[in-house]
């Protein structure tokens, strides 16, 4: 298949309680680069291998969590078509257009709220500032990497009540595919949906919880299991609050470690997984096997991992 329509998660806007400590975390510990600031005090960042101007937006606020998640689409025509379909659907609420340059270097965005209460955006244009190694005879990695140095912002896991509604919107309107799911009650109740618009194991995932608009984690891609171990060293060296890992997920097969930013937003860095093609059958996990589904090695559920969100 040629990849069309929604291409990838293009930016995540995070609320932080203190900008100075957040910026230090996202640049020195995680290892993103600052690419800009705006008149509202928001700070824009990107990972070294990303071409677009920014993939993470930090905003100081009185609570932690996610303001919105932005999706890049392949063209302005796709943006208009999807916006019209979302406007016409009862699944999308609070729809609006955000003017170009409300975020610096980003084109107009179509904003909407999905049934789990999360605010999503679509956009077709963002200035390309280029990856750190360039596009002509590039080296495999740049010299000035800091911290964990992920190559890109990769996906989010979100908590919300109307999983059916959000999954339906992403699949039926935005063209995502269900790569993996967790089911309960003998398959009658879906409790988690892993959704891809590309050929990754997931670009976004939702877990059914009796809450609206909660962020479980924002995830960034590393190149290898060894880099995940190195991230664990950095977490200890920098006294970052560790959540879990290094370990492997059954779901998506990712090799992973979880930790918190200074405002309590959970971050993940991971490697591995698999390439998903549209003819691959959906993987189903049953609720009696949740332990290995989530943490494949110790096969046990972790209450803090599942309970803590922002």
């Amino acid at each position, binding site marked *: 298949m040629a990849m069309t329509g929604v291409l990838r998660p293009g930016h995540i806007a995070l609320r932080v309680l203190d900008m100075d400590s957040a910026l230090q975390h996202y640049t020195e510990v995680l290892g993103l680069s600052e690419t800009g600031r705006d008149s509202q005090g928001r700070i824009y960042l990107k990972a070294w291998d990303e071409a677009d101007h920014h993939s993470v937006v930090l905003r100081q606020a*009185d*609570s*932690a969590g996610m303001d919105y998640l932005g999706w890049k689409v392949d063209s302005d025509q796709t943006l208009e078509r999807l916006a019209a379909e979302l406007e016409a659907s009862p699944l999308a609420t609070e729809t609006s257009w955000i003017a170009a340059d409300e975020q610096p270097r980003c084109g107009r965005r179509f904003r909407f709220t999905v049934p789990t209460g999360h605010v999503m955006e679509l956009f077709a244009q963002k200035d390309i500032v280029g990856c750190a190694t360039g596009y002509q005879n590039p080296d495999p990695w740049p010299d000035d990497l800091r911290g964990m140095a992920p190559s890109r912002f990769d996906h989010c896991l979100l908590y919300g009540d109307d999983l059916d509604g959000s999954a339906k919107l992403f699949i039926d309107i935005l063209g995502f595919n269900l790569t993996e799911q967790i089911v309960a009650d003998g398959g009658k109740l879906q409790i988690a949906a892993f959704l891809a618009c590309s050929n990754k194991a997931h670009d976004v995932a939702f877990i059914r*919880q*009796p809450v609206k608009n909660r962020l479980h984690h924002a995830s960034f891609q590393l190149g290898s299991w060894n880099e995940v171990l190195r991230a664990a060293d950095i977490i200890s060296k920098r006294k970052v609050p560790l959540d879990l890992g290094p370990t492997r997920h059954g779901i998506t097969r990712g090799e992973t470690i979880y930790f918190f930013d200074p405002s309590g*937003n959970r971050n993940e860095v991971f490697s591995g997984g698999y390439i998903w093609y549209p003819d691959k059958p959906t993987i189903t996990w049953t609720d009696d096997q949740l332990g290995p589904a989530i943490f494949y090695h110790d096969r046990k*559920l972790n209450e803090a991992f*599942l*309970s803590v969100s922002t």
Partner: protein
Amino acid sequence: MGHAITLGVGGPRFHCPEGQNVLQGMLLRGRSGIPVGCRGGGCGVCKVRVLDGRFSTGTMSAACLSADEREAGVALACKLFPETDLRLAVVGKISRVLERSPGLFLFYGGAAGAADNPSREE
């Protein structure tokens, strides 16, 4: 230097070194009693009520803590700095994983520390 932290009446007691927050103090001593979450003042699971003693606090998410709660001496242990010995009641909790109710499967019953999550009594 440092201060003695007591949980409840005659409950677990640990020493919190000078300059450390209460949650860090508990973890440094390998003690338990207060649920441990994000450790950044953002998630709310380590919520406690100060019953006795003087303290200061760092920045805590408004989504976890109402103004009334702050007035009443409720704080997040990860942002709670003792100025005297403290006696605390634990408010936040990490609920049991895997709860069920008809038609709804939950990984957890809701972190009681988060104001926008439904509260749940044991």
